[in-house]
């Protein structure tokens, strides 16, 4: 349950930024580990890449691209908030970041299937 003092859109935007950041940190070592096979054991890399033919893995990739996109677009909002003159349209900007992320990850998913 989200506690009452947190139940407003910009707190959810914060949550999304934190959760996506954490998920990306956890994914990175795996990503690096698999790519490093390219030099020593290319057949193992291909083995991993074949998994991406499964729809379920494609969905997971879609999720990952979404997390990456929302971390960038959400992060852009935060950088703008900190370094540009204040914009009163914070909620609109946060919602736009989510929309842009769906657009990007959706495009990725459509290209993948």
């Amino acid at each position, binding site marked *: 349950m989200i506690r009452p003092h947190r139940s407003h859109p910009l707190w959810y935007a914060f949550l999304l930024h934190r959760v996506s*950041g*954490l998920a990306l940190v956890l994914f990175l070592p795996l990503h690096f580990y698999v*790519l490093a096979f390219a*030099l020593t054991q290319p057949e193992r890399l291909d083995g991993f890449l074949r998994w*991406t033919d499964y729809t379920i893995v494609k969905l997971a990739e879609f999720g990952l*691209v979404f997390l990456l996109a929302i971390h960038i677009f959400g992060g852009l909002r935060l950088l703008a908030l900190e370094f540009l003159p204040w914009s009163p349209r914070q909620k609109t900007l946060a919602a736009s970041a989510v929309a842009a992320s769906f657009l990007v990850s959706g495009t990725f998913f459509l*290209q993948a299937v």
Partner: protein
Amino acid sequence: MLDLRLYMAQRISALIMIPLTLGHIAMMIYAVQGGLSAGEILARTQGSLAWMLFYGSFVAAVSVHAAIGLRVILFESFKIKETILNALSWTVFLGLLYMGARAVYAVTAL
């Protein structure tokens, strides 16, 4: 827990990564068409200094950014002591840097 130096490192690494991540996403959307294969990826990247610089700076920036981000989460969630927090941040930074450098080398070296 951030002071000015960590904050600057966090924000500067973020600024560096904005164009790099957007490029990476564009690349993924392009590359995923027709399925992923090691041969296709390597044909594009191996022996390319440009890709090595692109992904090399990406790895350096993400190691800084992720180590500081994780540091804040660990502190705010578990109130870890500063000495331990520093040790953990450095471990995450160096670990990611090492693994990332290996991966970049593997896909871009000849």
